[in-house]
């Protein structure tokens, strides 16, 4: 079992959720976060925004569906320009995958 944490643009969240739904992935947790990457935020004129709002999706999946989910998130969350649709932009986000040892359903109290 793996935990996928995808930090994506808030405006692309609904598209990603819809795409995941089409692939049969419904269960997820959403958290509003702020953060920055190696560009240290964004500078607009003389104003510096050191943290930008993002949305974090947390999804726990069995090992075999993880590559598919990553592919779906990657292709949907990537923004493109009109000229080069698949280039992506700075700030599109990141996906982290970590291990999950055990998971329990509280309703039944059993490991699943």
């Amino acid at each position: 079992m793996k935990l996928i944490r995808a930090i994506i643009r808030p405006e692309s969240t609904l598209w990603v959720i819809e795409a995941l739904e089409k692939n049969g992935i419904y269960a997820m947790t959403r958290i509003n976060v702020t953060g920055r990457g190696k560009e240290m935020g964004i500078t607009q004129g003389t104003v510096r925004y050191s943290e930008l709002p993002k949305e974090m999706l947390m999804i726990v999946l069995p090992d075999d569906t993880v590559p598919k989910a990553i592919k779906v998130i990657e292709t949907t969350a990537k923004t493109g320009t009109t000229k080069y649709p698949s280039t992506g932009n700075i700030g599109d986000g990141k996906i982290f995958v970590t291990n999950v040892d055990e998971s329990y359903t509280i309703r039944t109290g059993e490991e699943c």
Partner: protein
Amino acid sequence: MREILAIIRNERAEQTKAALDSIGVKGVTFINVIGRGKQKGTIRYPDPQGTLKREVSIYIMQQRGLIGNPEDPRYHAPVENELDLGFLSKKMLMIVADDNEVPGIVRAIIQINRSEHKGDGRIFVCPVNDAIRIRTGEHGTKAIV
């Protein structure tokens, strides 16, 4: 060392805190999250008086843009006493604890939060490589006790 991620109901957060206190777990991080599980955020509400009729619940869903066009492939006909809310508000607990304490904490959380209804939440246990206390710079297990 392991991290416990528990997604629970908002109204059980205080009780859970008290229960964790009693077994000696002090450090807990609470996060307000929204989420859903296998049921796609559908809740069944009790309606003994029949005050909230099916037509009303359909109307509410339409107002929220959850259902609309029956030709939409995502359209599903609403069931009586069922409301599709999309994402539901939950609390997420993050606890980093020593390996031998994990089963006790998991048992305590399950005991408090179990109501045998859908939406009770889930607990995930993940491995953690290292923990550092910022004040002293201590590493490992010393940092979490």
